[in-house]
């Protein structure tokens, strides 16, 4: 089989398309587009997870908390669009929810 197995779409392509089209302005989408976005999403996840774990290590912790992720987002320019989402979360070492310390 000529098909490359090196990369298989991990995220459900149909779901990605639905999420895209939840935006009323978004119209037709080529077949390849959700596949390409799935790959971009993987790279994005990798980046944000690793940025978060850097914070986890800085604090000598073993568990990546929302506080670590929030800090990583605040310190990375390309994650500016996430500020509102992480803004809802408590800060590390601040009040936060009891679960954070688990």
């Amino acid at each position: 089989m000529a098909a490359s197995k090196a990369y298989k779409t991990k995220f459900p392509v149909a779901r990605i398309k639905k999420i895209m089209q939840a935006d009323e302005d978004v119209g037709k989408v080529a077949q390849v587009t959700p596949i390409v976005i799935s790959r971009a999403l993987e790279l994005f996840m990798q980046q944000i997870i690793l940025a978060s774990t850097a914070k986890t290590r800085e604090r000598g912790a073993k568990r990546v908390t929302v506080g670590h992720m929030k800090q990583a987002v605040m310190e990375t320019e390309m994650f500016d669009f996430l500020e509102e989402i992480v803004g809802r979360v408590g800060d590390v070492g601040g009040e936060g929810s009891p679960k954070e310390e688990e």
Partner: protein
Amino acid sequence: MADSMDDELSLPKATVQKVISEILPKDLAFAKETRDLLIECCVEFIHLISSEANEICEKEAKKTIAAEHVVSALEQLGFGEYVEEIQKVAQEHKEQQKSREKKQSKFDQSGKTPEELQAMQEELLRKARERYETNAELQ
């Protein structure tokens, strides 16, 4: 009200968990809460890229969001380092499409409908059966 509709449009937790396990260093754990926050960030990322790609698509007076629009959107939004990978994926998809189309066109080029092809096959089988039975008699 609009919010509850959006909640359904999330990413499957199991899939996200799998990707996390692949990326996370072995000595660290990911809190469940953190995973859920990550999912929200992912959905937001999709919205961000889609919205930008859509604008770029419209500026070009095109109707369908294509891979190139996503590439431009990533560059505009500061995710230029993803572009090389994205282009690989787009290229692979193009090649898979080509090989699928080649197989399909071979079928189409026979110039016959599936019914005609089936009739031809049955005729061949019938003739083969006759030959077999004739041979059997002669023995």
